[in-house]
């Protein structure tokens, strides 16, 4: 857990792990971090009274552990916890949310890949909200704050209706092998 201060990112350069992709996880991390902060303060008071060394880190969730490790932060350090709390608050306040609907429930690995792509290409703090829409068959529907992008197979069929009609009429398809 402990890393050198030189390798640490600046608070503004902190990144969210792919496991944390929704506002629910962010709020959960905030609550967990607050609880950890209280625990550490109480532990610090107890250690002063009993003249003990620095208290041990209690068991934390996988999300918080991933957040700390990916950002080279030590949860035993008050400043690091403060940085992470500030970062999470900034994420909760400012991070844009993208809603994506799929035909079936996506697996965790699939979600992680999508979130990675979104944070790499769209916005580093983007939050993902998942939805289920079985009628789209394949693909997805993406809703940004002001727009909707229908990337489903249904929309693709509608866009390529002329090709479909030509095929039904018996006309040769463009690019099809004779």
């Amino acid at each position, binding site marked *: 857990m402990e890393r050198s201060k030189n390798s640490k990112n600046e608070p503004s350069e902190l990144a969210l792990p792919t496991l944390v992709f929704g506002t629910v996880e962010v709020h959960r991390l905030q609550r967990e971090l607050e609880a950890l902060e209280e625990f550490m303060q109480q532990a610090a008071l107890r250690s002063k009274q009993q003249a003990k060394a620095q208290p041990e880190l209690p068991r934390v969730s996988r999300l918080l552990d991933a957040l700390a490790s990916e950002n080279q932060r030590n949860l035993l350090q008050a400043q690091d916890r403060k940085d992470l709390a500030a970062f999470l608050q900034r994420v909760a306040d*400012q991070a*844009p949310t*993208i809603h994506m609907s*799929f*035909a*079936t429930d*996506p*697996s965790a*690995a*699939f979600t992680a*890949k*999508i979130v990675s*792509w*979104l944070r790499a*290409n*769209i*916005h580093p703090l*983007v939050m993902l909200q998942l939805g289920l829409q*079985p*009628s*789209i*068959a*394949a*693909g*997805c529907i*993406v809703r*940004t*704050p*002001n*727009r909707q*992008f229908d*990337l489903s*197979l*249904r929309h693709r*069929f*509608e866009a390529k*209706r002329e090709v*479909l*009609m030509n095929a*039904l009429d018996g006309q040769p398809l463009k690019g099809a092998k004779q």
Partner: protein
Amino acid sequence: MTIWWLILILAFILAAGCAFIYVVLKLNKSSGLHTATLAESLQKSAEEDVDHIFNEEFREELRNRGRLHFEKILGENAMFLQQDLRLTTSQLNDYMKQEITKELKEAFANYESAIGDAKQLAVESIEKTKQAIDDQRQAMGMQLEREIAEEKVRRIKRFDAGMAEIINHYVLESIGNQIDLNDQLEYILAELEANKKAIIQDVVNGA
């Protein structure tokens, strides 16, 4: 019958008496007054002989003769009447037959004419009805064909309009459960990449 006989006999007696009186009077006129005494005596003797001549037997004989004659006349008249009656009956039968036949023929002719007229009317009515039915059938057929054509065009249009939805539904029903999201990842990322600029713009502006 007895009354008639009696009347006949009395008439006969009366006639005979009148004839006798007439003869006597004639004789008296021719003989003159000088024979008055003779005449009176003859008159007296004649009156006396009347009772002798027209006695009961003679009267009975006259009655029998009159009765027989009357019966003969009656029989002859009855025979003639019977013959006339038979002849009349026969003629009446013939006449009735002719009249009945004539009436029946006229009635049958009238009936036949009426039946013919009714038949003609019925045939004309049937023809008209048949024509009307044919016209109606033709009109309905044309209307049905037109509506079928319109419905066909409408359905084709609807089919064309909903083609994408139909294909999508077909794909969903056919292989919907077999489409894995992991297999779609490449397609989804490609589509996201294609719309990346618009998404970034909206996210930045929206944020």
